[in-house]
């Protein structure tokens, strides 16, 4: 399949993830949407990598994967921390700080 098809898929996935981040209220779903965005970036990287015949894209994608895993771990730890005090997973209720 030509590269542009893969790029279109990765763009669509990226924007679906962005919509999820902006619109959803449940923190976990927002985190999952961010993971989707990172995965979309990885897909774009690998498509260009094949188009150019260049391995560097694969190496970068490898690092993105490690980064996404670390970010997910920290994000989930913070969610658990918030949940322990507020007993909610909703962004609307997490607003003790308005001012």
């Amino acid at each position, binding site marked *: 399949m030509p590269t542009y098809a893969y790029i279109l898929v990765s763009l669509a996935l990226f924007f679906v993830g962005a919509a999820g981040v902006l619109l959803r209220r449940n923190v976990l779903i927002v985190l999952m949407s961010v993971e989707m965005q*990172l995965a979309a970036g990885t897909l774009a*990287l690998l*498509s260009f990598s094949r188009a*150019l015949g260049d391995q560097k894209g694969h190496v970068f994608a490898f690092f993105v994967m490690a980064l996404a895993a670390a970010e997910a771990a920290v994000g989930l730890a913070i969610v658990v921390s918030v949940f322990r005090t507020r007993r909610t997973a909703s962004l609307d209720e*997490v607003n003790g700080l308005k001012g």
Partner: protein
Amino acid sequence: MTIAAAQIVALSPLLMITGVGCLALLLDTMAKGRAPALWLAQLGCVAALLAVANQWMGSGSSQPIWSGMLIVDRMALFLDGVLIIAALATLLVAAPFMREHEFEHGEHYALVLFATAGGMTVVHATHLLSLLIGIETMSLAAYLLVASWRRQPAGAEGALKYLLLGAFAAGFLVYGTALVYGTTGGEMSYAGIAARAARAADNPLFIMGAYFLLTGMLFKIAAVPFHMWAPDAYEGAPTPVTGLMASGIKVAAVGGLVRLLGSAFANPGLALGHAGWVRVLGGIAFATMTWGNLAALRQENVKRMLAYSSIAHAGYLMIGLVALGQKVDGAQPALLVYLAAYAATTLGVFTVVAWVGRRDDERLLIRDWAGMARTRPAVALAMTVLLLSLAGVPPTGGFFGKFYVFRAAMQSPDLAWLVVAAVLNSLVSVYYYLRIVVAMYFRDPVRPWQPFPSVGMAIVLFVTVVVVLALGVVPRPVVELAAGGLVTHW
């Protein structure tokens, strides 16, 4: 690839900070109490500063090392110095603060060092991968530090917002890298991108990639409209951490932007076109400083007000970046001087904020600061000097920082409107900084004042005030240093 010893030595400050951070973690598990880990961390900072000085002596030519991932030039070493000093100051302030509020733990010190290591990677980066890893290391450590005061729910909430938006920005950084990689024919190093930018600038996908990268970086310096996380994160974090975020992390992010925009995206077709990043950044700079100032006017909470003021300062800093894009000669040294002055001032201000709160009486509202001048005149005077520096009133470092940046920007006629707007904004900002001064000097105390004694905080406060005044009274040596040794010849 054989690793030459010279390459490892060139990175000695970074390796020292990282190594000491790991050792501090280890020491915390083994030793009784927190003091050994803290002392190790502080000594490590001092040692790293010596390593920076050592590198400075020998940094004649500067070539990218580690296969084009990093570069060790004077700008990077200067910013390294600023970051390490910010870390040291944060450690000195954080320890008594945590002891007073009873949430001390050794990981905090290690996290401060790791955040600094990330920041140092960012300012040395000459490749999109090292930039990404540096930014993310710095950010992850910051998220954890913001959430570290477990008994304050505000901290975890602020950290959550920071993390969600920060991860969103990371998504943009990754996708932007993918687009730039594809459209430049496989280049991810700044030099490579710069070489191909002339041809690739015609390709809309390349431009989109560049803007995605810019968006990701702008999130990190809390520019409008990507600033939504900053007030909550700054307010919820323990005060020493807020100080680190406002000084060290912002300095590192701006440093990363300087290098990214100055080398990779410096191509005139990309920078100065109809919708080139110079114009776009100019608009964002205006929005940032205006919005930051207007929002700060309405704040009663000192930390939140300082958060908005920090956003406004990011706007002023961006003027320097825009001038850099216009290829103004003095822009880069001016920006570096401003960064140093801003970092010193911010660290001092947050030290005072950390100092005035006790275990059950945080004193975070402006009216809580009433009457400080009567019982603690030295601290009140120091705070006044620092606030005047933030406002840009002579003879302080903050004034000269702004002066040099605005002067550099004025050399390009396109930017005159921006400088005028910035000066107006600075005048407006004087009002909300002076509210605190007025409360300290001209109001009666609400409750008796008992800031807790702390040698570390006193040292930090004293040093930052001295630096701010020194930069204000004799700025010449620093400026000459910046202009002579620090200008990178892209």
